[in-house]
């Protein structure tokens, strides 16, 4: 049985992933912003897992609250085996271009708060000599594009940070897993017209995450075909790339 801390537990990807862990009898500590949604999700997971579930709602942008949050989770679970960082927002790129404040707020939520949590969790796991850290990043972090480079920059920072962390902890029995989903049909992407083969359902991503944990993977694109798409995107020379409408 695993003790799993989920941060951003009301996100669609986190919720569907939690259900897959629940069936295997996991115990959870759920953290999210909206108390009402969190309660509905906790109730559902209690029924699926047959275990009582602890939760707390919190604004994760307040980095100074992170150490105490993790201490409570450690205590309630009796040791965190798996930490899943899944919170994030999709900022309005056009609005960010007109506002430094909005740009920095998006980076605070998508990069800094995740880095703060990852730093603290990594130290706990390192000391213990085991632990699994799963972080939801994005294909958007692989290359800056005019349509969403504020979001992309935050995810790109997160990717590099996690690479370094993985490098540091590789000999310490700690798995650092970076998840790079493509387009996923969730409330976060509600504003998009969801058509075509590139869109995935949250449960497809969840299935991939569970498999990546079991196989001890480092970085996974989900669904897997994004690996090839991003391979091409990353290798387009900047001189050409800057003229593309992406």
């Amino acid at each position: 049985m695993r003790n799993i801390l989920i941060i951003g537990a009301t996100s669609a990807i986190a919720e569907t992933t939690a259900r897959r862990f629940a069936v295997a009898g996991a115990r959870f500590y759920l953290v999210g912003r909206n108390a009402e949604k969190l309660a509905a999700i906790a109730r559902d997971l209690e029924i699926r897992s047959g275990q009582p579930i602890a939760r707390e709602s919190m604004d994760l942008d307040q980095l100074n609250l992170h150490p105490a949050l993790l201490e409570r989770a450690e205590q309630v679970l009796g040791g965190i085996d798996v930490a899943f960082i899944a919170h994030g927002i999709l900022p309005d790129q056009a609005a960010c271009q007109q506002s430094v404040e909005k740009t920095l707020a998006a980076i605070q939520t998508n990069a800094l708060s995740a880095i703060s949590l990852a730093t603290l969790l990594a130290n706990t796991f390192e000391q213990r000599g085991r632990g699994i850290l799963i972080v939801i990043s994005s294909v958007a972090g692989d290359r800056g594009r005019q349509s969403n480079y504020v979001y992309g920059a935050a995810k790109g920072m997160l990717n590099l940070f996690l690479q370094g962390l993985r490098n540091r902890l590789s000999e310490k029995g700690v798995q650092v897993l970076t998840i790079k989903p493509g387009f996923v049909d969730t409330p976060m992407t509600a504003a998009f017209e969801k058509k075509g083969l590139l869109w995935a359902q949250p449960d497809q991503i969840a299935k991939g995450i569970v498999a990546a944990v079991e196989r001890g993977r480092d970085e996974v694109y989900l669904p897997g075909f994004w690996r090839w798409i991003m391979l091409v995107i990353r290798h387009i020379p900047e001189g050409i790339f800057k003229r593309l409408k992406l």
Partner: protein
Amino acid sequence: MKPWANYPQQNEQVKIALFFPASLKNFGIHKKLIPFGNGRSYGDVCLNDGGALLLTRGLDRFIVFNPANGVLRAEAGVLLSEILALTVPQGWFLSVTPGTQFVTLGGAVANDVHGKNHHVAGSFGSHVRAFELLRSDSERLTCTPKQNIEWFQATVGGLGLTGLITWVEIQLQRIANPWIVAENRRFASLDEFLALNDDYEARYPYIVSWIDCAARGRALGRGIYMAGMHAPPGLMKPPPAERRALTVPFAPPISLINNLSVRGFNWLYYHLPRPARGLIPYQPFFYPLDNLLEWNRLYGRRGFFQYQCVIPPLDAREALREILARIAASGQGSMLAVLKRFGERTSGGLLSFPRPGITLALDFPNRGQKTLALLERLDEVTRQAGGAVYPAKDARMSGDSFRQYYPQWEVFSRSIDPRFSSSFWRRVIAD
């Protein structure tokens, strides 16, 4: 969006995905709405040409499950397959299940679906303890068979028109294990089928028959009688290897279901040897087609029509013979024809389809006018016999037929939410 039969294909201008029950006012749209669950209704009850669809699959959380008494409450977008995955290992089964487990709980209520045990258990609505109806004016009504009764009766079988069903509470039935004791028998004629009913219905809770629709003359009305019951404690085998579902990858330009394949399939299905009695897992017994995902694509891009009618007991024999004769004469056979007797028990739903009599379900590849004309000829028989056609499977019945089949439609229409409408509803109330 497309319904299950891939006909008709219409354009909804707005799609709104629901993840948490919110007030319906927040969407800021002025088009009329209809909830869309998992898209398993065959025709246009789940469509809203030019309007908006509320996609309810995001409402998929369990709220309460009590393994001591089998009461389950869940959000309306939960699939019956998800319920079974949770409850079967704990010894509980749906009190009524349709022939696919891939329908939402809300859809099962809105279409008041039925199953192989109708003759003893009634329809899905008979086992609904409560649900919440969210109206477009933000009123939330808890409806039970004793509270807000008019809303309960309008919403069970109400085709999603009375407002959004946010959650549903149902009573499950106890089972000892996931196995079914099943019995198969061939019958040579409708008369033999009716005689078998009298014998088997007293002994088996689940009964359904397949009928060879391509047969003519002396073979007319032949078929296979299938009965089943949940296996008693102790009578079970080790769990079967999980069968991988196959997927029909795409819809071919023309239907693979044609006269030749229908005749061949029906002949084989009738003559293939099958065990008279056996112990089988519940999935192939209740959901034989669920292992062939997207099977609707076999009918090609033009889709198909389902025709399911019920004929009152008195005229059933004559009317069914006439329907089968008209189908055989048309040369448009049905791949899967299903026959079953409905019992007396009703859920009270104003627009519920199940009523005492014999029900026959058929499907036909869409060959345009030719198929529509045949279905209208079948409606003639159904109307004359005082029967009814199932809205959840319909895409073509006339307004006159509908209003004769569902005389309560005017009473019902008073409960329709002013912001809700569907393609089906506009079609059947137009003249």
